[in-house]
């Protein structure tokens, strides 16, 4: 064992960390170049810390920043950090990516708001809100895939759950029953997927696709034949925002409008995020789940029931996706609309992959996706001033996530047995 393959170290390739440093420095230059265009000396950017609703509770002064100095300071800091990373290298680099992305986004916002104003809290609050269904979908994916079952049916599960939640809430007049129906629908569709994938060892992509098609078709049909005909089955039913129940919480500056002027489903999602993150890495359930997703046969030889773990996780995942579905209705507009999930289930899968199959990572990428969504809306308002092609801005989060994947995370850690049916010998 004395002679392992660590023989010569003569050829030192340009390391990934170094390349990353260069990339960050380039981002710094981009900040300087892109965001000093069309700026007059003395331009001020006004970033609002209120939302139209929060003004009723407490009014904060706006954040007023001189555009050019901000761009220069943040740009130079980014270049400095990048160069240091390229030449010397930091010990840990995760935070660096955060700082660089933050610098880029801040300068972009300051630049977009030049000679105008822009509600910062508004966009952050909207980002969190829009990230919620993506996060729930991604958590559902984490639960399933960590146990080795690929679930591309999250979209269908969310859609189905969105439908039943409205229907049941209207029929019973009880919104909690609507929520229960959403969870049950997710669980039921997941159980179907589980039986196909685990019991009958069907191709999991096919099984998931079948569920997606089924959910789309059936909800379209029922929407047309039931919801449109009996309009009072599709009345608006939503959970009250936390700010409506606890008005005092909403009065906390910044945090209030950001976190509490939200539907409770946002909070459920955040709680689930913490619970699943901790459970996955610190409890027996988590250890066994990951073992089954990595090497089911090894788990089997230690007396772990692979099938039971997979069934449990897929069904739990279905319930989480169901909660995500309820977000679209009970947590948002209150009524069902055809194909209202609009591909969020698939974005959620991307968020899960970008998040490297971890809840926290999924959350980070959900936030990026949510932020882009929110930005898109704002950009339409600011469109005159932002004359870089909006397509480029929309690509940004994907570029960032790709860099995260390639550089910081380094290797994708997909569960080794993901998507492979387990056969007992």
């Amino acid at each position: 064992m004395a002679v392992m393959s660590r023989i010569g170290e003569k050829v030192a390739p340009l390391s990934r960390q170094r390349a990353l440093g260069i990339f960050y420095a380039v981002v710094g230059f981009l900040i300087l170049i892109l965001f000093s265009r069309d700026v007059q000396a003395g331009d001020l950017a006004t970033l609002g810390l209120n939302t139209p609703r929060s003004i009723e509770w407490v009014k904060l002064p706006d954040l007023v920043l001189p555009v050019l100095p901000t761009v220069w300071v943040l740009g130079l800091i980014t270049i400095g950090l990048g160069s240091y990373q390229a030449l010397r290298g930091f010990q840990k680099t995760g935070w660096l990516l955060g700082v660089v992305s933050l610098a880029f986004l801040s300068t972009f916002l300051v630049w977009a708001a030049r000679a105008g104003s822009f509600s910062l809290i508004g966009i952050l609050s909207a980002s969190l809100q829009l990230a919620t269904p993506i996060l729930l979908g991604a958590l559902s994916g984490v639960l399933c895939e960590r146990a080795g079952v690929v679930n591309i049916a999250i979209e269908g599960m969310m859609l189905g759950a969105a439908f039943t939640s409205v229907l049941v809430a209207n029929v019973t007049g009880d919104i909690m029953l609507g929520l229960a129906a959403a969870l049950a629908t997710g669980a039921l569709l997941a159980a179907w997927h589980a039986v196909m994938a685990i019991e009958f060892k069907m191709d999991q992509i096919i099984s998931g696709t079948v569920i997606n098609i089924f959910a789309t078709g059936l909800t379209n049909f029922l929407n047309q034949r039931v919801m449109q005909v009996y309009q009072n089955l599709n009345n608006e039913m939503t959970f009250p925002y936390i700010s409506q129940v606890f008005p005092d919480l909403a009065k906390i500056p910044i945090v209030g409008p950001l976190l509490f002027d939200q539907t409770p489903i946002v909070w459920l999602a955040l709680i689930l995020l913490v619970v699943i993150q901790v459970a996955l890495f610190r409890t027996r359930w988590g250890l066994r789940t990951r073992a089954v997703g990595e090497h089911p046969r090894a788990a089997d030889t230690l007396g772990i029931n692979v099938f039971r773990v997979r069934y449990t996780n897929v069904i739990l995942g279905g319930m989480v996706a169901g909660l995500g579905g309820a977000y679209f209705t009970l947590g948002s507009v209150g009524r069902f609309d055809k194909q209202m999930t609009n591909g969020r289930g698939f974005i959620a899968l991307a968020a899960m992959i970008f998040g490297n199959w971890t809840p926290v990572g999924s959350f980070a990428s959900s936030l990026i996706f949510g932020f882009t969504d929110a930005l898109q809306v704002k950009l339409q308002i600011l469109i005159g001033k932002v004359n870089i092609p909006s397509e480029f801005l929309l690509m940004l989060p994907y570029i960032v996530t790709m860099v995260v994947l390639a550089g910081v995370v380094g290797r994708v850690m997909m569960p080794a047995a993901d998507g492979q049916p387990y056969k007992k010998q």
Partner: protein
Amino acid sequence: MAPLLELDSITKQFPGVLANDHISLTLEHGEIHALLGENGAGKTTLMNILYGLYHPDEGKILVRGKEVRISSPDQAIHLGIGMVHQHFMLIPPFTVTENVMLGEEKLKNGVFLDRAAVAERIRAISEQYGLQVDPELRIRDLSVGAQQRVEIVKILYRQADILILDEPTAVLTPEEVEDLFRIIRGLVKRGVSIIFISHKLKEVMAIADRITVLRGGRVVGTTRPAETNSAALARMMVGREVILTVDKKPAEPGDVVLDVENLQVLNDRKQVAVDGVSFQVRAGEILGIAGVQGNGQTELVEALTGLRGITGGRTRILGKETTKATPRQILETGVAHVPEDRQRDGLVLSFPVADNLVLNTYYLPPIATGIVMHRGPILAEAEELVERFDIRTPSVEVPAANLSGGNQQKVIVAREFSRPIKLLIASQPTRGLDVGSIEYIHRQLVERRDNGCAVLLVSPELDEIMSLSDRIAVMYRGKIMDILPAEKATREQVGLLMAGVSA
């Protein structure tokens, strides 16, 4: 006192194979009982039955004199039975601690994993049995030998006193085998009884108290090392006289076929793995490359066959420059390659045997015209090769994965040898094979040589190198230490070179 473990008339039928045919076996307290048999003899099946992974069709199992039914691994674990599987059952991204505790987790506050406590237990066990296992490391960063020790710790953690080791030495270097034997003896002293599975005669003779030989799913006999010898055991195992030494005529070297000059190759981590290696192989000779695994042999062979880029120096085959050639170009100059990992690099396991047999000629007539492949000629070709190379398979249409290791190797040999070849590069061609298959492969290599083929044989098995080679090159840390004529080389000399000590 009743034996610790008694298997009585165990029978297991797989579709088409009677894997275990009324096998009876006892294990006494504190005994090392070796189970010897060729690949496919039914050893693993028998142990999987004992461990609750398979259910026997007939027969009963008694543990400490009491009849038990073992229908799942956790029942076996409960009875104090632990098994180190032939293919390790470890989860690469997990730490040692996580692997050990899996299935038998220690918790604090009733919810959270108590990694610290388990790590402490592992250190204690590791200390007590001299296992040298660091609980914090991840499995994927460990050497094969260390992984095996983790498997043993897993079993000791569960306080098993019956330890099954299924072909534990197949993946180890000679030094690691010595380590393992020391550990096994230590375990026995502390009251663990061991079933040691192997097909290697020497090892069984060295470690076992009793030896039971299996052949074709049946017990051929039980004996003790003192009452037998390697030749007799080999006869029991194979069922006929076995020639343990290879007899070959002196080599008649011809022209240079492979010419390697100052070759430099990097490994996957971009470090220098082959460092300025030069040698030649002539027609009609076998050049053996000895060396402990991981000294650059893998990278060398990959570079020679075009599978890995060359960063310095040059290679020529039959005078033609091949430094930058693709695998197919190299193959078409008349090179045959028997890869180190036959399941990964040698076969497409899910393909039928027939398709595997034409992997290197599938694009040529008569098998293909243009882009169309013809099933008829493929099958005809395959049938002929199966016949000629004596490949034991139910049909040429079954997936290669269904064949035993020896027969999988024969598929590769058949495919590679059936063309007119000038150079044969064989990397660990007998790894994990049974005596019968080893004998067969060795005969094939010598026959190729006698037909004027240049043979490059890479093997960490010193015996194999010594008995087959005409010249022996020893690799150490990416360099060739020396090249010796075989008739002058001694085991000791080569062994020292393998450890980096030059004469």
